[in-house]
């Protein structure tokens, strides 16, 4: 049984309420931080913990905090990124719904460390149930003196507001989120200046993911050094993994960073194996944006070592034979799934969600979608496969924000590892045209492994 520090109390009946949360050790960390620690001591603990951003980029949180401009007089802001929209990821929704006070406590401690008096939680507009739960929990925290003026009798004041998005994947990018918070279209900003210097309303701002901010609570409770002992190397602590796709037990699991992909996929404690005993074809380990890996490469690295769920191990082999931990969206594909159809599906997503600012992304995602649609529906040519590789290359690295990269990687990796499936589609147009949807389709056509 892995150690749990975020979700350990999640099954206590009524933990959603202030009273039950408080009676089970809740708000101890906030009380300690505000009454006994200085903001820089809190930041030091977070630095010592080695906590890395849980939204996808994995940037060290303590370092991000230390970049915040604290010298310019005037307000500073903390913005909590709850715009969870990465396909395959649903962990923040789970935390907000099941244990909202953990996030609020994390927000209080983090805002205190950053000397921010106003904090916004940007929740994706579709999560209206979670917005209701969170808003209620915030009202409870105000009523019990953990928010508002002179919190716990100290001189610290903090207001937390929930802000609802309205359906735009791009707003998960931190500067697009700030634009959206200012009431505009979610168009990512050019960096520098980074938000730490010029963020919300032009003021110094830190944007952190829900899970990152929630993790600050156990860090203060156990101390940064103790937290850093969990995990492997630079991947410290625990991580919420959202497991979905063709598995027996989809859901959100808290793991200690460093367990093997094999354990996570097959242990009854986690995914419980591939559904209905089918064979594993591929896994996307970190949300739709990261490279897809075939069964062989996701279980073992190219060097033959066990693949572990850590930032480093999943990235082992670079983009040739590795992937990324990303946001922890673990999507499993069984042997009957069609990689071409899935790649087309993801590309359609990125095309739909591209904000349209940068030509390589706006046009490139559209071209890729068209070409993939062509191949998937039996009208592609061999040249189309190379064309896709070429478009992906021209998008990657040539856009203001990482959405361009996120659109290019799934296509490039799918062709790298499953070229035979693309070729099969090109060479057998009649067969491909006559079947409709995954998952039944590949069984009827041919198991693509045969096309190798």
């Amino acid at each position, binding site marked *: 049984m892995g150690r749990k520090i975020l979700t350990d109390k999640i099954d206590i009946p009524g933990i959603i309420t202030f009273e039950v949360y408080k009676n089970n050790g809740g708000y101890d960390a906030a009380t300690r931080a505000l009454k006994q620690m200085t903001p820089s001591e809190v930041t030091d603990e977070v630095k010592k913990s080695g906590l890395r951003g849980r939204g996808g980029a994995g940037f060290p949180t303590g370092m991000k905090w230390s970049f915040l401009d604290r010298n310019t007089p005037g*307000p500073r802001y903390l913005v909590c990124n709850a715009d*969870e*929209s*990465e*396909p*395959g*990821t*649903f962990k923040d*929704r789970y935390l907000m719904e099941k244990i909202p006070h953990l996030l609020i406590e994390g927000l209080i401690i983090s805002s205190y460390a950053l000397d921010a008096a*106003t904090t916004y939680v940007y929740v*994706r*507009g*579709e*999560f*209206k*149930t979670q*917005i*209701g739960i969170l*808003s*209620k929990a915030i009202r409870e925290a105000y009523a019990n003196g953990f928010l508002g003026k002179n919190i716990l009798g100290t001189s610290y004041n903090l207001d937390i*507001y*929930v*802000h*609802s*998005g*309205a*359906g*735009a*994947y791009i707003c998960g990018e931190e500067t697009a989120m700030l634009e959206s*918070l*200012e*009431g*505009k*279209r*979610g168009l990512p900003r050019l960096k520098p200046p980074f938000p730490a210097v010029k963020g919300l*309303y032009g003021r110094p701002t830190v944007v952190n993911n829900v899970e990152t901010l929630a993790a600050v609570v156990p860090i203060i409770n156990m101390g940064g050094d103790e937290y850093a002992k969990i995990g492997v190397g630079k991947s410290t602590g625990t991580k919420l993994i*959202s*497991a*979905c*796709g*063709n598995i027996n037990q*989809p*859901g*959100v699991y808290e793991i200690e960073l460093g367990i093997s992909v094999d354990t996570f996929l097959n242990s009854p404690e986690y995914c419980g194996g591939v559904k209905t005993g089918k064979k594993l074809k591929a896994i996307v380990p970190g949300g*739709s944006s990261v490279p897809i890996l075939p069964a062989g490469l996701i279980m073992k690295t190219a060097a033959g070592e066990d693949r572990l769920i850590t930032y480093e191990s999943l990235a082992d082999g670079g983009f040739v034979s590795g992937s990324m931990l990303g946001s922890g*969206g673990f*999507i499993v*594909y069984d042997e009957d*799934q069609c990689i071409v*159809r*899935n790649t087309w*599906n*993801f590309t359609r*997503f990125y095309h*739909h*969600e591209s*904000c349209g600012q940068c030509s390589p992304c706006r046009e490139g995602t559209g071209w890729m979608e068209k070409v993939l649609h062509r191949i998937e529906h039996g009208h592609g040519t061999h040249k189309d496969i190379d064309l896709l590789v070429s478009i992906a290359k021209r998008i990657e690295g040539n856009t203001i924000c990482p959405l361009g990269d996120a659109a290019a990687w799934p296509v490039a990796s799918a062709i790298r590892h499953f070229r035979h499936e693309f070729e099969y589609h090109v060479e057998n147009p009649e067969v491909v045209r006559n079947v409709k*949807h*995954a*998952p039944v389709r590949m069984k009827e056509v041919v198991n693509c492994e045969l096309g190798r």
Partner: protein
Amino acid sequence: MSENLIHHRLFDKKGLEVRFSAETLEKVKQIISRYPEGQKKSALLPILHIAQEELGGHLSVDVMDYVASILEVQPIEVYEVATFYTQYYLDKVGKYVIEVCRTGPCAICGGEDITDYLSAKLKINDGETTPDGLFTLRTVECLGACGYAPVMQINTEFHEFLTKEKIDKIVEELQQKANLDKSKESKWVEKF
């Protein structure tokens, strides 16, 4: 979408008097107060949600102009936001908007079949509304509930692990509910 907007601007501005109720105006004021002095525009997204919920189910030009006047911004600033985000409807929608997730994780768990089934059952295509004005069917990108696939959202409510039988039941329940007193339905915005 932009075509729709141009169409609205030129022909569909009816000059109707649209207004929030006194109660909602209080709520709107409270939302505006969450943002600093001089940053009223920040309240645009939340207030558009309220406007859509309270003033007819979609954002007509009259409604958008009204929101612009409340926030003291130019109407174009509201139009550009309303056309960017997928949750704002520029055209009339049904009482229940059924949004089925079409993205990868749902698709590999049967999401595409769910869309097809709903489309055949309600006899409408993606983006269309039933003649009785009860249901609009839309396919949407990832709803962030991949572990409970296939999923759909009807207005504010999520429906998970969908099967054909479940859909039959949900649709039937909504048809019955539509016949009951409308005032009994609680509004999301009151909880926000």
